[in-house]
């Protein structure tokens, strides 16, 4: 961590605490000491610390206080693509967005398929990062889908899951072996579910918009087919599967059914998949180009329903920075990807306003649920836990302006959106890294 001026000991008082892990919802004061949560007490039950005690009293009344948010699906682009994002800029964007922990995908250059790359990432995060960074290792060497990466050594080096994100493991037998092998090292497997033969040269969702734009389509079935396969393999191997960025009604249905049968499957959805449909693509804005693509209204409704009934456990951004070099191009030549860390919380809070989720459910999907899936000792305000805390102002309205992003990249389709609710403080290990929207240099 960068050395920052921060109170060693402080008390957040007057806020409304929502901690789904401890089923805590109410007005509590939180005392932070030595980087840990020292005490959580009902507001008013303990007096304000006197100035000479060295305890800073921070007034968060009217705000929501939650465990530090976790985004389990982020691309930090380092090593190899530092012009798009670095561990420092990406983690800074996370801090700005209210996230105290992020997990970074292995599609860097070199790929994170060896302990040395994992160590490099952890070292960079340690010395220049703003939040906790948990690397995700590769399933296969070079993400080529041919042979297993050194998964055991990756685990020892510190990865919290394995994924060939972006490159679906087309070989079903390799996927089966990956699940079996990952079981030995207690690592969940995170597939990007897409049948590459079905998606073919597809660029956007196959539907009315692909028909009128003449852009080749990716049928929803390309996702559902692979979700079904991977669920079958999770059953075969008895191991834990976490489906990345669910975008289709078919996938939601398969996951729901598998969960009902007790299969160890969990799933995530991104804000862009629950906020936008293929309609956004019709004028060829490359900032709407993403994989899986923005889908139909029916798919969007199914994803929301999946979030609502618990089929989808986690909200994750799939923050995928791309520079203008990759986006200011013909649609077919542009890269996929949408950045999300700085809009994720606000778009998720919109689910509360729209009556899809309770506030507590949204927080759970951004805290304890990903923590449980990845077995991170995070996502909680339990006494003794790391003092990772986010403070949210539900009333703050703001206009998305990508030029103000902390991320190095600007590729968002939410430019000019007016959003309500925003993180106003991010605390990582007892250090305040963001306060009132300002990164604490």
């Amino acid at each position, binding site marked *: 961590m960068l050395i920052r001026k921060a109170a060693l000991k402080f008390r957040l008082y007057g806020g409304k605490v929502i901690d789904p892990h401890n089923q805590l919802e109410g007005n509590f004061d939180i005392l932070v000491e030595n980087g840990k949560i020292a005490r959580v007490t009902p507001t008013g039950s303990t007096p304000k610390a006197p100035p000479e005690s060295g305890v800073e009293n921070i007034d968060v009344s009217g705000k929501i206080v939650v465990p530090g948010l976790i985004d389990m699906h982020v691309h930090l682009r380092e090593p190899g693509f530092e012009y798009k994002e670095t561990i420092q800029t990406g983690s800074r964007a996370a801090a700005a967005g209210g996230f105290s922990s992020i997990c970074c995908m292995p599609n860097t250059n070199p790929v994170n398929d060896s302990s040395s790359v994992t160590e490099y990432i952890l070292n960079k995060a340690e010395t220049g990062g703003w939040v906790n960074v948990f690397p995700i290792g590769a399933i296969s060497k070079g993400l080529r889908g041919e042979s297993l990466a050194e998964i055991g050594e990756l685990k020892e080096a510190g990865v919290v899951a394995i994924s060939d994100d972006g490159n679906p493991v087309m070989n079903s037998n390799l996927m089966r072996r990956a699940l079996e092998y990952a079981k030995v090292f207690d690592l969940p497997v995170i597939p990007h579910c897409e049948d590459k033969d079905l998606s073919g040269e597809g660029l956007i969702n196959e539907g009315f918009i692909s*028909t009128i734009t003449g852009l080749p389509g990716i049928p929803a079935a390309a996702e559902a087919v692979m979700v079904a396969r991977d669920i079958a393999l999770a059953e075969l191997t008895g191991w834990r599967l976490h489906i990345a960025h669910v975008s289709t009604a078919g996938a939601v249905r398969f996951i729901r059914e598998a969960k009902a049968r007790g299969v160890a499957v969990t799933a995530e959805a991104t804000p862009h998949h629950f906020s936008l449909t293929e309609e956004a693509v019709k004028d060829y804005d490359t900032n709407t180009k993403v994989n899986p693509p923005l889908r139909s209204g029916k798919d969007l409704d199914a994803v929301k329903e999946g979030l609502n009934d618990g089929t989808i456990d986690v909200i994750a951004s799939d923050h995928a920075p791309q520079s203008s070099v990759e986006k*200011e191009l013909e649609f077919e030549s542009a890269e996929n990807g949408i950045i999300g860390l700085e809009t994720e919380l606000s778009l998720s809070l919109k689910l509360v306003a729209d009556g899809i989720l309770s506030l507590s459910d949204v927080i759970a999907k951004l805290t304890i649920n990903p923590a449980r899936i990845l077995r991170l000792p995070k996502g909680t305000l339990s006494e003794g836990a790391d003092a990772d805390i986010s403070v949210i102002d539900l009333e703050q309205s703001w206009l998305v302006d990508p030029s103000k992003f902390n991320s190095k990249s600007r590729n968002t389709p939410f430019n000019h959106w007016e959003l309500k609710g925003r993180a106003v403080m991010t605390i990582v290990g007892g250090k305040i890294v963001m306060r009132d929207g300002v990164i604490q240099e």
Partner: protein
Amino acid sequence: MIWQRKHILGMRDLEAEEINLILETAESFKEISTRTIKKVPTMRGKTVVNLFFEPSTRTRTSFEIAAKRLSADTINFTVSASSVSKGETLIDTARNIEAMNPDIIVTRHSAGGAPYLLSKYVNSSIINAGDGAHEHPSQALLDMLTVKEQKGKLKGLKLAIIGDISHSRVARSNIFGFTKMGVEVRVAGPATLIPVDIEKMGVGVFYRIEQAIEEADIIMMLRIQMERQKGQLFPTLREYSRFYSLDLKRLKLAKEDVTIMHPGPINRGIEISPEVADGPYSVILNQVTNGVAVRMALLYLLAGGGDLD
């Protein structure tokens, strides 16, 4: 009405009254092409750049003749793969051309949506002369002009478009255009070549040519391209021809005075039999003549109108 649109990106955007204005303007331009001196000074001092990223002789020539008959200066800028391989982006290429202050850029590109991208980065008016499988608006307009001449109207007619609808920008533009003008449009082809949800564009969908052309006033045959597919969309040209070619026997299902159109170039004996292609129903050459008139109209309107003498 007064023309206000800056770009012609697709028929999707155009309103019926704009289409009418283009067609009426084109009709008035047809006469110029029959004069001994086929030129009016309307666009003197204006510059039209034909910026083609895809090989095209017929469309480019048609735009070039159209511009020259209006006295505009025309420059053909054909961007070969070499410029792309040097790493210059579409935006950089367009900005380079923009620096020479053209009034109108006519562009063709293999990527759907490329004219949209250009229109965001340059000040000139953009005319889409074909982008990927998206649109080819001037082709649709010349088709509409041809039909209007043949039938004296558009509203209430039945048009059947047969063939590879999925990969056809001509089909998309014609569907948008003709449906806006009150024409009943049907499409037919093997299900593998009919894009999903196309009925939402307001067309009837058929898988048999016989059903689609029944009582049709106009039949538009699309070029079938074997190289587009690797045996996964239809088995062979032979089989395609057997089920989807327009021959004299099938033609009897259509109206007696049916008009046959083809955006060209035609595959004789594959999507259309030679007897039909050369028969009295075919207006393929009228389409070419009308192409010049329609493109003159587009250039004229985008350049801000002016005197016609």
